[in-house]
């Protein structure tokens, strides 16, 4: 990055000219430092190579991480990593194009400076020669004219002859000076033509280079950041760093989704929906969700162990069996009552098992993860003794936590009867989705078991 930062330039080889390279001969000597331009081109070229290398690193790392990773979150992660790699590659190409253009321009500038500089020197020399020869020619012409006039007025024939001879010599010198001046003019015009052509060629080359560089700049892509950014590294795992807990935020987040759907038959002890419907009643929602879940689970275990588990249906069947029944109906009622009695007998043990899991989850998983800031919570919609739906707030939370945007995450797991279908949206970022998958599966499996039994 620093290689691309602005900085002071060193002295220019041709520059700082108070006349800005103007020559007075119809062309300019280009300003600028080819050496610095070439060095800058090399820096950008090295950046292009580095970007290619970094892109390959990102691709390799993403493939390494994704190789054995299956799930919707992996898809989201791979998609994002693919975007990053694409940007790295595109920018490497754009950098390379700019570097190539500038490298060529450095040579063109150097060539233009050499040619125009040489042309300038030749123009100056030939212009000087031309001027001096023209001056000499004028002087010789004046001499010849003077001598010719003197010869015309001379009385002595010998004197007249001598003056005429000298006038001829001066005339010859004038002619020679004029010829030299013409030669110098030819040299000057040739040099001037060279200078103008080189200057014009350089201008075209510079304009073409500017267009190339501008095009390269337009092709430089800005990589999209992970949605919501990335939170500090989690503690306790290979990544190592700390988790911030916000009990107040947890309580608020839990209370919101639970309140409108709370329900359940509290007198019956444990019924679908009761775990969450009674959270508020027991003050759990305001006392820290994770520890509250553990405490609640343990309390419910005690309740389960003590409470009689009666079934209205079983009672009705038993009452019906005491009365008159048709043989077929009696047989059906007896079989059904037997089955219900068996299921009810198994209920405490199974429910206890699941409650222990809930407690374990709260202690070992939900606590640390939810501690990052809960966005929503577990939501149970009850009906017909089947847990219909679970919104895995843990997934959302993890997504929000890792993504650094608790409110933006949306990884939800739905439980419909025994089927769990986690739907991980982008909200909390790819890794958030990944965590959502993971936590959603954990919670979903747990709640599913509880729902099936209860």
């Amino acid at each position: 990055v620093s290689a691309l930062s602005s900085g002071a330039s060193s002295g220019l080889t041709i520059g700082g000219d108070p006349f800005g390279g103007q020559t007075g001969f119809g062309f300019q000597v280009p300003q600028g430092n080819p050496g610095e331009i070439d060095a800058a081109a090399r820096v950008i070229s090295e950046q292009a190579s580095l970007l290619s290398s970094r892109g390959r690193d990102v691709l390799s790392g993403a493939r390494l991480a994704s190789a054995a990773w299956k799930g919707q979150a992996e898809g989201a992660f791979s998609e994002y990593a693919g975007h990053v790699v694409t940007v790295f590659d595109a920018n490497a190409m754009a950098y390379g194009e700019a570097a190539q253009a500038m490298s060529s321009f450095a040579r063109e500038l150097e060539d233009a400076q050499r040619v125009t500089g040489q042309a300038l020197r030749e123009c100056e020399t030939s212009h000087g020669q031309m001027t001096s020869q023209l001056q000499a020619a004028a002087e010789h012409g004046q001499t010849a004219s003077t001598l010719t006039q003197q010869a015309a007025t001379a009385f002595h024939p010998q004197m007249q002859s001598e003056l005429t001879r000298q006038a001829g010599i001066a005339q010859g010198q004038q002619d020679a000076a004029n010829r030299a001046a013409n030669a110098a003019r030819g040299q000057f015009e040739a040099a001037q033509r060279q200078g103008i052509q080189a200057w014009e060629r350089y201008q075209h080359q510079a304009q073409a280079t500017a267009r190339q560089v501008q095009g390269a700049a337009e092709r430089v892509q800005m990589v999209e950041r992970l949605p919501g950014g990335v939170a500090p590294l989690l503690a306790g795992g290979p990544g190592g760093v700390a988790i911030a807990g916000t009990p107040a935020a947890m309580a608020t987040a839990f209370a919101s989704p639970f309140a409108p759907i709370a329900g359940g038959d509290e007198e019956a002890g444990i019924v679908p929906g009761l775990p969450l419907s009674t959270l508020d009643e027991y003050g759990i929602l305001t006392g820290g969700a994770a520890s509250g879940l553990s405490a609640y689970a343990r309390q419910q275990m005690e309740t389960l162990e003590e409470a009689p588990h009666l079934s209205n249906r079983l009672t009705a069947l038993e009452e019906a069996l005491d009365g008159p029944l048709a043989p077929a109906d009696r047989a059906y009622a007896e079989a059904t009552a037997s089955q219900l009695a068996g299921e009810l007998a198994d209920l405490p043990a199974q429910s206890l098992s699941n409650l222990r899991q809930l407690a374990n989850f709260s202690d070992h998983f939900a606590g640390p993860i939810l501690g990052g800031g809960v966005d929503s919570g577990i939501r149970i919609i009850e009906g017909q003794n089947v847990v219909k739906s679970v919104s895995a707030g843990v997934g959302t939370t993890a997504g929000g936590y890792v993504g650094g945007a608790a409110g933006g995450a949306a990884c939800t797991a739905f439980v419909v009867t025994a089927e769990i279908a986690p739907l991980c949206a982008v909200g909390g970022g790819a890794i958030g989705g990944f965590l959502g998958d993971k936590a959603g599966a954990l919670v979903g499996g747990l709640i599913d078991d509880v729902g099936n039994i209860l």
Partner: protein
Amino acid sequence: VSFFSVTPDELVAGSAVVGGATAGTGAAAVADAAAMTPVEGAWAAFVDRAATASIAMDEVAVDLAKALANAAAAYARSDATAAGGLAVHR
């Protein structure tokens, strides 16, 4: 149902490789290299945009590496939880 078979180590390894993409380069001033030439403006604009893009790319590589490390940490944590009795899809 989502299935997971990646291990924390794999994510950490991926994170390390991605993190290698942030290797810095030596400092040099290039923005003013084309001063006093007709390319000066276009070059300065390119360098400015490239610098911005490079900073973002470096940061994103760091983000990716950090995110993978986070995932690895979460995996390690959830694996520990699974070892305590929860069934975890893998």
